[in-house]
């Protein structure tokens, strides 16, 4: 439990407060990182960079705002930076991806398993699809905001999102056929 006192100490650069915040939010933020990256190693890199930024920018944190949201924003920004730097961030406009065979084992009985499989679906998506899908569906950003974040046009964001959904459908349908 992160109290106001811990938040204040964190703002003042207290290391123990930072450790407490890491303990409280690292798991959730690692989940965010996993959604945006191709693999767990990349997610670890993003998480590491995110929390380093969080620590260094602790003085900029405003106590009247929710800490979790501030941390999540930095984590997502770190993920986007990482994607831009390390992935060849290509927005696929071709439909050739949808002709490829993707086989997924989708099980809906176990919630945890389902989550893992959906995560696997996300990682199968091209970087552009995955990023836009994440930002729109899970972070609830508008296409305009996504366009600003990714430095793309709003229409590109929309098309990326719809193509992402189409591909997800294909992946899931393929599984249904298999099932």
């Amino acid at each position, binding site marked *: 439990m992160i109290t106001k006192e811990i938040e204040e100490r964190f703002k003042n650069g207290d290391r123990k407060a930072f450790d407490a915040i890491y303990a409280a939010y*690292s798991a959730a933020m*690692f989940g965010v990182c996993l959604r945006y990256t191709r693999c767990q190693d990349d997610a670890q890199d993003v998480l*590491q960079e995110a929390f380093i930024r969080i620590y260094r920018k602790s003085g900029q944190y405003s106590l009247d705002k929710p800490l979790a949201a501030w941390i999540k924003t930095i984590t997502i920004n770190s993920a986007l930076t990482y994607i831009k730097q390390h992935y060849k961030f290509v927005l696929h406009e071709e439909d050739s991806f949808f002709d490829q065979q993707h086989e997924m084992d989708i099980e809906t009985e176990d919630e945890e398993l*389902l989550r893992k499989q959906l995560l696997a679906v996300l990682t199968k998506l091209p970087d552009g699809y995955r990023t836009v*899908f994440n930002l729109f*569906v899970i972070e609830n950003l508008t296409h305009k905001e996504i366009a600003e974040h990714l430095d793309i046009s709003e229409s590109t964001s929309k098309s990326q999102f719809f193509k992402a959904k189409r591909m997800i459908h294909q992946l899931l349908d393929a599984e249904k056929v298999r099932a």
Partner: protein
Amino acid sequence: MKEDNNIEDLFRSSFDHFEVAPPPAVKEAIDRKIGGSSKKGLWWISGLLLVLGTASFLFFFNYSSENQGKESSDNQLTSTETSSTNSDSKTTAHSGNSSSTHESSTSSTSQSGDKNALLQGKNTGSQKGSHSDGNQNLSSSGNNDKGNKSLTSNSGSKKTGSAKANNPKQKQASGKKSTGKKSSGKKNNSGTPGFNDLSAPLDLIVFDSNQQGNNNNNGINTPVDGNGKTGPKNPDETNNGVTSDTDPPKKTDSVVADPKENPITPQTADSTKKEEKKQPLPKPKNAGENWLASVYAGPLFVNNTKGNDEYRTLQEKPSFQFSAEINRSLFAGYGLTTGFGFNKRQENYKHTTIQVQDSAIVINDSIPIYGNPNVPDSITGYLDTTYYLDDTTSTDYIQLNRIQTIGIPLYFTKHFSFTDKWGLLVNAGAVFQFHKVSVGELNGMSAPAINKFSMNVTGRFHLTYTWNQWTFSAGVSTGWELKRAIIYQGLDRNRYFITPQLGFHFRF
């Protein structure tokens, strides 16, 4: 459309509270990267303690050397005073009491305050100080009468030949003084050289503390010895003043009976001592010219080594470094140096990113497998081989960062003198630095981690030429950045520097 929304909801609900514990390696990596910052407080405290410790040390040595200088001048003054102002009834009373060396020393120490007492421990090699101290304690107790009485009884007991019986009274006398045991020891010590040896303390500087200790060991019996038939060891003492001319018990008795009656005694002694007292005092080693103000300047060249990534490079342009320092000589050419320095530099961080486009071209080939390579017809099958021709592109990202640094050096110093003019000045220690960093355009790179406080381990070697109070030097300062100031992500950096310098120094 409904299905689309279902998918969105499915993802939304699934990842709403999606948490996965990261491996501990992540936290360890974070700790490594920001570890320096977490111990920021410790660095500050240790740095502050070092600076404060050095300042205290310098102050202490400065204070003690000043006092030592004062003490020697006090000794000089008191000696002179003894020769000229022995008409003081109290001093003559003391001298009458002890009828020996106490007189002169009593009069001499009446001028010097607690400083001499303070310096007693330090100036063990200075017999002057110890003599005067002992007497000072006797006279400065404020109970001169009592002191006289105790001394009187001392001499009286000497008469009776029961030296042991004197002990309690002497202890009582010393006990009334704030200095306690020391005072008694000094008192005893003061009795040893004899009244006529006022100049002797000046010459006794070379005596070591053991001798002084031995004098102390003479204890209460010393006056007895000085006045008694055994006499002082130095035959000259017996020829001086009262002690030499009198049968000790009777003389002391007459003086004790009325201390003011015999002012001639010290005057006689003084008249014999005047010439000796005029001898110049040896200058204390630590008195004066122990401070050295220095200015150093020169170009700073830096070599940054990195051990982990060929795609990251760091170049630091030569810059100018200036420092103003002050050095305190402590002993035998050793000293401590501190001050401040200034440097403004800039460094280029370049990151080359290699993009590998996998399977840009794929060629499938079938290679025949021969049963017997020497027989062309013995093909037993084909091995399919796929060649991936990768297309790589590299992009250079460059970041220009500017750093302004203020450093506080803390050096141990040794000056080796080859001749009167030439020498070698060696400094070794640390420089605590404070930085102001202006991070340039990131150009898609992550911002470096900045420690506002860093520390260098530094050595400096200067050839020196001394002219009067001025010293000119030339040499190099070199070292290694122990605690890093700027940390670039993914770059394991070691920063070594060397600065050819000129130095200008003024000793005071």
